[in-house]
């Protein structure tokens, strides 16, 4: 069983405005915004990544230990997935 890889949904319009990522889900017409670490993670999701890969990048680039990075990453991924902003697919 491969690791779950998360990717951005195809129904989004996104803009960078003064360091924030503002997303428009054109299926629902709802706007979202991401700041700081959220923007960093969103960038990584452009190419698709697993929670473990994202958390490692967060731990490397921000002043946070691996355990906290993984917990925060999972929380954000859960929010993004609940809102339909990312989709998952398994890769071997």
């Amino acid at each position, binding site marked *: 069983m491969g690791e779950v890889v998360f990717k951005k949904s195809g129904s989004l*319009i996104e*803009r*960078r405005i003064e360091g924030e990522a503002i997303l428009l889900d*054109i*299926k629902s017409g709802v706007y979202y*915004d*991401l700041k700081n670490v959220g923007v960093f993670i969103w960038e990584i999701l452009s190419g698709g990544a697993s929670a473990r890969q994202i958390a490692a990048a967060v731990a490397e680039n921000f002043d946070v230990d691996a355990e906290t990075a993984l917990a925060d990453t999972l929380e954000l991924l859960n929010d*993004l997935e609940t809102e339909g*902003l990312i989709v998952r697919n398994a890769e071997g």
Partner: protein
Amino acid sequence: MLQLPRHALHKKLVGRANPMRIQLEITRRCNLDCVHCIQGGCSYVAGEMTAADYERLLPRMSAAGVFSVSLTGGEFLCHPEIMVILELLLRSDFWLALQTNGTLLDQDTVDFLARSREKIRAVAVSLYGATAKAHESVTRSPGSFEKTIRAIDMLSEAGFRVEVISLLMTMNQEEAPQIQELCRERGLFHQFNSIIAPRKDGETSSLECRLSEELLKKLPRPWETFTENFIPHEPDDFSPDKTLDAWCTMARTSGYIDSKGNLLPCSIMDLPAGNVKDRPFDELWHDSAVFNALRKLKIGEFECSRCGHFPTCRPCPGLAFLEHGNMFEAPKEICRIIELFLGDKEVKKA
């Protein structure tokens, strides 16, 4: 919390004067001859934006933060390069809205649009009657009713959100219930208004089509005289010392690019920031002295702010600009209609 409520988004973007919605007047050409047309005779205007111009413009708009683009005219489908322009728009990452009379839409074009349906928020179609006689008394174009109805049905069949927009005037006001019924039967969103504005060139013959008070009273409350639903707001947003953020979005989060490429605050305020063929969109948007002056205007500078109906009624300053040549005055035609529905205004005392 990830979700950004509209109010919070508006505040965030308006504070930065970040363009969010841009209307593109693709062409002034039109195949109809509507009695009320604000453009004042829709024909070719020298210096019209080409597909190549749009190819340069669209990435700059995207980079500047624009999310939504509305296509208007004239009739946008009359542009000789419209299919190339549509290709460019649909390849770009914008949320689109189309405003059309529908008469030039054929099945091939609808199928073409439907391949990117997700990117097209809505298609607004102008309909002036539920019969050919009434509709064509406005369009002055025989056969236009049948073509418009056919377009509405093709668009609905293809899964688009179709918004039927009806302007009611002396010659078609009796059709209001039948238009509503036609839309109800088809499950279409419908809205009407009764505001006849003077033509942009100052010609005023169309004002004779305005409805009398007696006829207006027979109609439901028109949507366009009430802007409270357009921009989310809080009560404090309307203090005299506040800027127009919660009242009018012109030059703040919305703008208009006419068929020649002039960047304007809105569709009827002829105060160009400059031309997007001469200077990049984002530079014009942020550096324009005209736009920056508009962004500093205070609510207290406008006559409307001293009216008892404000801010329940906060009509478009552009209409006053068009009607009186002065955006600070109350647009008298709106006052006439509003007073019918809300009663005589009481001027607030200073």
